[in-house]
């Protein structure tokens, strides 16, 4: 979805061959069948599962087909805090990631243009976290932010953190982890749009006596909107569904559990498949609605 922004940018307009439809069919059919079988029908089975009823007198994990709308009501009310945390944490982490990433992307894409080698070096450093296991880098932060770590001791020494305070297991740590893990997803699309930004527009702003701040807000930001949209979507969507950062063994605690944690626990541990399925559908529906409204509001429907 968001990736279409990159894909469609430098399209050379080609006159498509009208016939040769059998060739197209042969090329498309295997992959499309694969996606129908392993993407679309799983979503449908998720919907079916979400309506299942408990088998009377059955074992744990035994369900029969049904039309239990009640599953949605029950799971939404039982897991309302998880739902709110998922979208709240994801939203805050997305804003943080945007604020942290924008100057990085601006520097690499605009200021460093004269030094292509420096540009590619910095880009490599931005994506470097991708190359070390997602789980291990999150665990590294858990250790760095743990109670006896120098970071926490220093914060306590200057009384930013109370003597009995923790960092790990708090919403702060979860949002911190989400922000950290998704900064590359934010920086790369911002960089791709800023890299193409025509400097002359900024100079025009300057020539017209706009202050640097006005030029930034009225020229740079609007011109980099496609990157901002792609970056925020690429951060928000995976962050809202994440259950690693918020997990008790990583940066969270039972008080920070997100929707993803509830889905995982219900599916894999409690074998309460209908609730897990209903929560998954809720997650997906809310994301699609939010993304739809967001994209329409920012006037960039053509990105999709």
């Amino acid at each position: 979805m968001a990736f279409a922004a990159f894909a469609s940018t430098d399209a050379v307009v080609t006159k498509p061959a009208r016939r040769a439809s059998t060739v197209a069919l042969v090329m498309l059919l295997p992959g499309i069948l694969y996606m129908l079988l392993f993407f679309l029908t799983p979503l449908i089975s998720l919907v079916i599962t979400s309506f299942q009823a408990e088998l009377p007198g059955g074992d744990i994990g035994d369900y029969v087909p049904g039309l239990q709308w009640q599953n949605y009501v029950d799971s939404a009310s039982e897991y309302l805090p998880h739902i709110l945390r998922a979208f709240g944490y994801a939203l805050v982490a997305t804003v943080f990631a945007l604020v942290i990433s924008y100057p990085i992307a601006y520097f690499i894409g605009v200021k460093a243009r004269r030094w292509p080698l420096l540009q590619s070096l910095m880009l490599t450093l931005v994506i470097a976290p991708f190359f070390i296991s997602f789980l291990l880098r999150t665990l590294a932060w858990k250790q760095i932010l743990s109670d006896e770590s120098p970071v926490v001791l220093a914060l306590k020494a200057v009384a930013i953190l109370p003597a009995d305070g923790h960092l790990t297991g708090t919403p702060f740590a979860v949002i911190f982890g989400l922000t950290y893990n998704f900064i590359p997803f934010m920086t790369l699309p911002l960089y791709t749009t800023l890299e193409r930004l025509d400097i002359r527009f900024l100079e025009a702003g300057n020539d017209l006596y706009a202050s640097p701040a006005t030029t930034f807000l009225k020229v740079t930001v609007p011109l980099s909107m496609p990157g901002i949209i792609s970056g925020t979507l690429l951060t928000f969507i995976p962050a809202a569904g994440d259950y690693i950062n918020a997990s008790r063994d990583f940066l969270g605690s039972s008080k920070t559990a997100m929707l993803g944690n509830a889905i995982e626990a219900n599916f894999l541990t409690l074998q309460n498949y209908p609730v897990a399925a209903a929560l998954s559908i809720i997650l997906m529906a809310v994301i699609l609605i939010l993304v739809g409204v967001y994209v329409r509001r920012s006037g960039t429907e053509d990105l999709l």
Partner: protein
Amino acid sequence: MTALPLDTANQAGPDPAAGRRPRRRLSGLGLPIYVALALVFLLIPIGYTFVFSFNDSVKSNLAWRGFTLEKWLTVCNEPGLCEAFGNSILVGVVATVLATALGTAIAIALVRYRFRFRSSISLLLFLPMATPEVVLGAGLAAQFLALGTQKGIVTVILAHTMFCISFVVVTVKARVAGLDPALEEAGRDLYGSAAQVFWRITFPLLLPGILAAALLSFALSFDDFIITNFNAGSVDTFPKFIYIAAARGIPAEANVIASAVFILAIAIVVVSQVSRAARQKRLDRLS
């Protein structure tokens, strides 16, 4: 980049302003310093993981107990670790090959041909990227459950191939769209058969894009945990091994594997960038 005048304008830009307002120069340092600090921040967990791969730890790898090379030399002594790593490689390779083949064919067809349901097909391919992984994982698991499929390495490969296809299509599509059709026409004008034109012209021109897509697929597959966790059953991959170990403490051997993979990945990136720069230089010299 097309803009020679743009570059000179860029160079001339800050200087007169700095002349007018001398303080500008000092504040101009703010951004580079911030960026340097931000990049260091991004690298902290990598450094931590690397350093603790040399820790002379006994059970848990939390406190620093002294430097040792032992964990690097005896990685596979940690029970289950190398098996999980091997599974990750196997899944990554098979899923990458499948996804690259299926996705490349789709990408070419999407750009080159017009047909019915084109926009629904595009939607079907983009939607997985807009779907949270936990939904993809739970959906597949629900389907395998309904079909009574035994979860294992095959179901993991099926799942990984699915989400890799979308990324392959996007990556290769951009490359196909940038391809000049005149090159293929020239091939046909010279009586090349359809197969010859494809294998001698189209495929070599698309190859960088296909390779990039394959590397991306492998990286995504290798590091995936969320979808794997729902569909692996009792089979461990490297991320799943870490997830399970996280409850009782990660062995330093896991850091060894992660660090080695990191070094290899960075080496691939550097080599590909250097070779691209060299190719660019050759092209510049030609024109």
